[in-house]
């Protein structure tokens, strides 16, 4: 074991644990457990709001997979990754103050609360809850597997032990701390990612002999690496541009991101979050993908893409600093996992259990059920991750696109288009989900339909379905309530 590397990592876990305990103390004073546990009592300030959005979004796939892809594909992948700068401002501006005001009037704590009040439809609620539970559960499990691999490669523990360490760390603070703990931990993790990628980038540039030398080496190896078209010229401008929908503007439709857009305290917090979020997300994305490209001349021949970041950190930085920097991907995974875990359990507890099974649940009953469900989910994920079934991996592959295709129009049009109704929402969700699954399968067999990512066509089809169904079936203008209901 390499204690130089491990000590900073352990220290990091301890700090996270302390945040959970502190948050639990805060919650003990609160009067509304549900709103507090799942939404932090709507009191996030600008910095925390920005960081929790960035950290939730910047998952392990972007933290380990992204630089790995950039290592293989070159600058073209950095260009693709920069479509994510939009997430820094787009979600908060689009959902914006209207979502915040309406969510307060509806007393909505989850995204599904909003959809339920807006469309007054059991089918909408159940389809939403089911998509969230299935897709995000899979996405979460995949992150656990990634986390365990990372710990394994750093410590030399067995996979099962590493998974256990990861699971315990995540569960403890999600269960005791709830949303507030998650949001504050995300903030810490955002700083770690910000500083970590910067240090590592500087380290890699120095190790590579400066920018001129690095680009010269890349040019000698394969000139395509420094073009926007990928190492084999495989990235067309159309395909890369379609990522604006998947990871740029379409992120509005991700429940774990949208729920954060109703968690802030006031408009000042939102304004600050816009500025901080844009800076932080752009900075992190630019740095970490550049690290991937620059790692190539420094450490050629890495076979497994996910290992690029750990290997390059151990190569170019002193042990203790590598440990500190590698806390960043671990941070990214944990923060994604914890917010997904909370969201899945809120869907079960709040959207299904309390809505349909036990509307008159008491405060302490709700509290017990919430923590119990969260713990139970964690244990199931742990057991599944020991020997992950193939279906799980498959579901994770299309989790984000599927959720976006299902949710983007019911959320956005529900807020801004007066004719939106439940028929439109149902048609849109089902069209989005079904067409996404079909096109995803088609693309993996026969290559990309129309040369764009699988998410593009379903987003357009679900928009059409929404508009047509809303206008044809019981067309009616909707008025938002003018006061809290």
């Amino acid at each position: 074991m390499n204690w130089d590397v491990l000590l900073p990592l352990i220290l990091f876990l301890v700090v996270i644990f302390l945040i959970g305990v502190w948050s639990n103390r805060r919650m003990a004073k609160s009067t509304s457990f549900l709103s507090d546990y799942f939404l932090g009592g709507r009191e996030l300030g600008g910095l925390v709001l920005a960081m929790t959005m960035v950290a939730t979004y910047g998952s392990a796939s972007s933290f380990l997979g992204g630089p790995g892809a950039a290592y293989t594909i070159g600058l073209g992948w950095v260009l693709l990754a920069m479509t994510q700068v939009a997430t820094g401002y787009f979600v908060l501006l689009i959902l914006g103050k209207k979502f915040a005001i309406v969510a307060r009037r509806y007393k909505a704590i989850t995204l599904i609360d909003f959809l339920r009040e807006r469309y007054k439809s059991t089918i909408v609620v159940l389809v939403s809850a089911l998509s969230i539970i299935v897709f995000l559960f899979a996405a979460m499990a995949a992150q656990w597997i990634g986390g365990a691999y990372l710990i394994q490669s750093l410590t030399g523990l067995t996979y099962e032990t590493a998974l256990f360490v990861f699971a315990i760390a995540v569960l403890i603070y999600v269960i005791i701390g709830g949303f507030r703990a998650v949001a504050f931990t995300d903030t810490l993790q955002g700083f770690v990612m910000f500083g970590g990628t910067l240090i590592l980038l500087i380290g890699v540039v120095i190790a590579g002999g400066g920018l001129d030398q690095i680009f010269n080496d890349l040019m000698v190896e394969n000139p395509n690496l420094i073009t926007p078209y990928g190492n084999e010229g495989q990235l067309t401008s159309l395909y890369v541009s379609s990522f604006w929908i998947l990871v740029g503007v379409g992120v509005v439709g991700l429940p774990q991101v949208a729920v954060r857009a109703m968690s802030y305290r006031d408009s000042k917090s939102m304004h600050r979050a816009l500025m901080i979020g844009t800076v932080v997300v752009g900075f992190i994305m630019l740095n970490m993908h550049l690290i991937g490209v620059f790692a190539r001349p420094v450490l050629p021949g890495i076979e497994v893409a996910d290992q690029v970041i750990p290997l390059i950190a151990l190569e170019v930085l002193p042990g203790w600093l590598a440990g500190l920097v590698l806390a960043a991907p671990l941070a990214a995974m944990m923060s994604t996992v914890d917010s997904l875990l909370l969201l899945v359990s809120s869907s079960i507890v709040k959207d299904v259990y309390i809505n349909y099974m036990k509307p008159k649940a008491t405060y302490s009953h709700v509290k017990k059920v919430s923590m119990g469900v969260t713990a139970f989910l964690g244990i199931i994920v742990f057991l599944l991750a020991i020997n992950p079934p193939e279906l799980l991996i498959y579901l994770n592959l299309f989790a984000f696109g599927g959720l976006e295709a299902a949710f983007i129009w019911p959320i956005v049009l529900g807020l801004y288009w007066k004719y939106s109704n439940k028929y439109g929402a149902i048609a849109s969700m089902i069209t989005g989900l079904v067409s996404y699954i079909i096109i995803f399968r088609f693309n993996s067999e026969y290559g990309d339909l129309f040369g764009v990512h699988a998410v593009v066509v379903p987003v357009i089809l679900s928009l059409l379905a929404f508009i047509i169904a809303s206008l044809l079936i019981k067309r009616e203008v909707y008025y938002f309530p003018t006061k809290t209901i």
Partner: protein
Amino acid sequence: MMNNIPERRTERRFKIAHREAWIGVILALVNILWWYGFAYTMGSKVPEEYTYVFGFPAWFFWSCIVGFIVMVILVFIVVKFVLVDMSLEDEDDMGNGGHSS
């Protein structure tokens, strides 16, 4: 607790919110155009003819690095000069920082 919130004030807040959502769309469009414009014009030359700015290929420098900085500046301008502070609550009349301009 005030139940008779003036209809006008409610609508005014929604109007502002609608305008700010459109600003989000415009920002994203500017972002996409800038990003696409530099990447696929300067970047489509053969790599041997690339020019470099501060060590980076020019297409990448203008599209990704300057593009990012431009977006940060635009977002700051929008936040400082265009977005409106408002109360998100309905109960009290003013809320916190709900001054109108």
